[in-house]
């Protein structure tokens, strides 16, 4: 019977059923690597000479053989008898293929355990019968929920050390069940095993006749493959937009992986957060027959009927399905893995879906010790291995789904100092926290030492009212020439004026990614500098390429209480209400400078101005 099944599977090979990823977790030294090693050995999954080779090597070095050495391949791991990094091993049962992920149990390597577990669909938690439930048994158990793993079994290992005593097993079972219940995880089985001796691993053996549940191998085969997430609304985070014109290819392709739902040619779609709309014209592929439909899990490329300008990072959804949330403040649950604690007033990078955005920690509501489930309030920072419920704030709205609704578009990581240092899930949009920059400006105004020269006194002296003139528009539209002409014109008329010409070099279109991330920092500095200039009674002229409404809001907020005059050049992309004067391209610099000067007069910045 089973041989029929087996040969069937070999015939179909791996093209058919998908592999299942399973992570083995638990406290240090509780026998995770040993369990996998034993499982591989007992199911003849090892290369034939491998077991003997490792045994011979152990004999040669005069140290006892460990099944764990089959997994712990690194030299440091073998010499210290510890797993440092998660290993993946490929393993086949009669039912299907697996990738078993052997996670490390030592707290020092928690980030490696998390990397391993985040790839898994189900988990095996190993607990030492002799030591019982330990700190990382609980911490790992708690993290499963956050990582989105719903299926788990628990192995009570080293039953040989407990004399195969049923009471020891039952005690651990009731203690750990109680803990897991609080985290929302219900293991399907508790299995008493001896990984070293192979009882209840691949076969039951005769050591524990009182146990009549499944072996580990049977329990693995009992895990269910998660069905593709086609029932949920379409979520296609846009990874990139391609146009290979140089290769003679004029398709404009929006590429990304469908996280949930179904997409068809002809679907009316909308991008979030920009709100732009279009219709799917085609689903593109190389070396494959044309298709009219694509579903969750597929990495696709689509073309649109009506061309829209959007950046990578937007979320494409269908207009006939429920939209995602968009917000600048997110209430999240996160765990921190960075060596440096997570602190307020520091710029981190958020990656959610395909969006990447600078982000700041705004509130810490509670910090949880995941191994004890005890919470703390009033903390000022989030330490390594803490789990925290907190509020994050971005500069521009970001599109997401609350994790309870769609897990795939409700999870994120945080980058600190080039590396992923935190990860978490979005609980909901937050509406109660104060805006970060407004709060900063309030603080700044409070602590600013004012001189006895008032703005009015300055106005009398300079014969003008101070303001920030922002010339916005696409790159290469003559903004700088206009700024220079305007400065000259005002200067010639005796005005206190300064042109801050940093824009094109710092904010040009071909800046690389890492500088792109710093655009917000550039704008912040520009806003602070503008504030000093306007406070000093000057007219400051600057140009910014591709300024959007949120960035403009940053400048306005930081320049407060200074005033602003916004000049939109060509297809400037700002809302009509944001712009004080719209100029068409191509610009005639001196003519345009005249128009801006007139507006300055009209708005009483230059009360005595006449041409």
């Amino acid at each position: 019977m089973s041989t029929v099944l087996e040969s069937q599977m070999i015939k179909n090979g791996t093209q058919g059923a998908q592999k299942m990823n399973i992570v083995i977790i638990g406290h240090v030294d509780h026998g995770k690597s040993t369990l996998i090693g034993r499982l591989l050995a007992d199911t003849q999954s090892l290369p034939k000479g491998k077991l003997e080779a490792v045994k011979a090597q152990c004999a040669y070095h005069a140290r006892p053989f460990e099944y764990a050495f089959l997994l712990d391949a690194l030299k440091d791991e073998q010499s210290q008898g510890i797993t440092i990094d998660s290993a993946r091993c490929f393993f086949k049962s009669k039912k299907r293929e697996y990738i078993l992920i052997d996670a490390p149990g030592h707290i020092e390597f928690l980030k490696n355990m998390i990397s391993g577990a985040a790839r898994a669909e189900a988990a095996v938690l190993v607990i030492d019968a002799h030591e019982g439930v330990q700190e990382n048994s609980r911490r790992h158990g708690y993290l499963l929920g956050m990582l989105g793993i719903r299926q788990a079994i628990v192995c009570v290992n080293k039953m040989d050390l407990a004399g195969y005593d049923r009471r020891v097993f039952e005690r651990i079972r009731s203690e750990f069940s109680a803990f897991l219940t609080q985290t929302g995880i219900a293991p399907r089985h508790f299995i008493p095993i001896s990984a070293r001796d192979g009882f209840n691993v691949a076969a039951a053996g005769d050591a524990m006749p009182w146990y009549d549940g499944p072996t580990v191998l049977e329990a693995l085969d009992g895990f269910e493959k998660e069905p593709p997430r086609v029932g949920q609304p379409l979520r296609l985070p846009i990874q990139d937009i391609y146009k290979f014109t140089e290769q003679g290819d004029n398709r404009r392709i929006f590429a990304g992986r469908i996280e949930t739902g179904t997409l068809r040619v002809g679907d009316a779609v909308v991008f979030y957060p920009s709100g732009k709309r279009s219709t799917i014209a085609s689903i593109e592929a190389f070396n494959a027959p044309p298709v009219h439909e694509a579903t969750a899990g597929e990495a696709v490329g689509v073309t649109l009927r009506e061309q829209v300008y959007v950046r990578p990072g937007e979320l494409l959804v269908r207009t006939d399905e429920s939209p995602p949330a968009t917000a600048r403040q997110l209430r999240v649950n996160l765990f921190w893995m960075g060596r440096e604690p997570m602190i307020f007033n520091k710029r981190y990078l958020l990656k959610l879906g395909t969006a990447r955005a600078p982000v700041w920690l705004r509130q810490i509501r509670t910090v949880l010790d995941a191994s004890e489930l005890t919470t703390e309030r009033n903390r000022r920072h989030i330490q390594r291995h803490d789990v925290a419920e907190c509020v994050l704030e971005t500069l521009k709205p970001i599109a997401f789904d609350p994790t309870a609704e769609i897990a795939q578009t409700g999870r994120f990581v945080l980058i600190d100092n080039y590396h992923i240092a935190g990860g978490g899930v979005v609980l909901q949009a937050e509406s109660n926290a104060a805006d970060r920059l407004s709060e900063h400006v309030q603080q700044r105004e409070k602590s600013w030492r004012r001189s006895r020269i008032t703005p009015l006194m300055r106005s009398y002296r300079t014969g003008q009212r101070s303001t920030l003139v922002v010339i916005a528009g696409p790159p290469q539209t003559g903004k700088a020439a206009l700024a220079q002409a305007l400065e000259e014109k005002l200067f010639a008329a005796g005005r206190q004026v300064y042109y801050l010409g940093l824009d094109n070099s710092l904010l040009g279109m071909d800046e690389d990614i890492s500088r792109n991330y710093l655009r917000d920092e550039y704008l912040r500095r520009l806003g602070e500098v503008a504030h000093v200039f306007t406070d000093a009674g000057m007219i400051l002229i600057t140009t910014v390429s591709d300024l959007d409404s949120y960035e403009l809001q940053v400048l306005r907020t930081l320049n407060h209480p200074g005033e602003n005059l916004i000049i939109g050049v060509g297809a400037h992309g700002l809302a009509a209400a944001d712009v004080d004067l719209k100029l068409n391209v191509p610009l005639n610099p001196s003519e345009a400078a005249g128009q801006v000067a007139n507006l300055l007069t009209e708005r009483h910045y230059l009360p005595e101005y006449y041409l």
Partner: protein
Amino acid sequence: MTKTMTQLDVLEAQSVYILREAYRSFKQLVMLWSIGKDSTVLLWLARKAFFGHVPVPLMHIDTGFKIPEMIQYRDTFALKWKLNLIVGQDVEALEHKHTFPDGNLSRLVCCKRLKSETLKHTLSGEWPRWALNHKTGAYERQDGGEPFTGVIVGARADEEGSRSKERYFSPRDTHSEWDIAEQPPELWNQFNTDFAPGTHVRIHPLLDWTELNIWEYIERENIPIIDLYFDKGDGKRYRSLGCAPCTGPVDSTAQNVREVIEELRSGKFSNIAERSGRQQDAEDGGGLETLRREGYM
């Protein structure tokens, strides 16, 4: 009505996602092409990811001792698929005969010098690069190239111990070294695409593929693969390709892709490591770890 994705579909989607993520994140991106089956599948996946185009330059480290058919195959497909191909070589070592085949170095040191070191210096731009000119078909020397900050590599987790611990995106320090214990975490489909000045990131889109998956995909997609992998009548074929002096064929009568797949499924090689024909591994205690820590692919 909804189709279920096969295992190959799932692997392909993940690799394509990783390639696109790399292309989006790294301005100085390069893909290593060893001419072998894995990196050729990788190249094919790039054509999938970018809809028939390969917008990333490819780099081949030519030790000067490659099996001659490999170079021929490389040049044919580089021209045919319009690849932006760059070749790196340790001309000095070859000139002064500082190599294993010349009897002056051990296999391991030779491997380190002609491959790892050459790779490192060609990536950084310190050493010259030879770029294929598609008009003339000749390779032209280029000096003072920009360092590459993203390097796409065809490593698979099932190959040997240390590769099973790799991340999809693996940051390497300024000396190209791999600090295994200090690897940053990688969660869900979020990768470490940021890097400090002077460092680079290795990208592994094939991590979850097995040797069998590779061959099944070659069959499904009908990828033209170099015929050194097939028996041509003498009962021998290569299972892994490298330098002629250090790479041996295995006993096998598989003459085409289908037969290679049948052979792998039969379990014929289940007791033999894929790289068993590669003799430098044996000198490293079988683990490749030392070589890999120092930048070997």
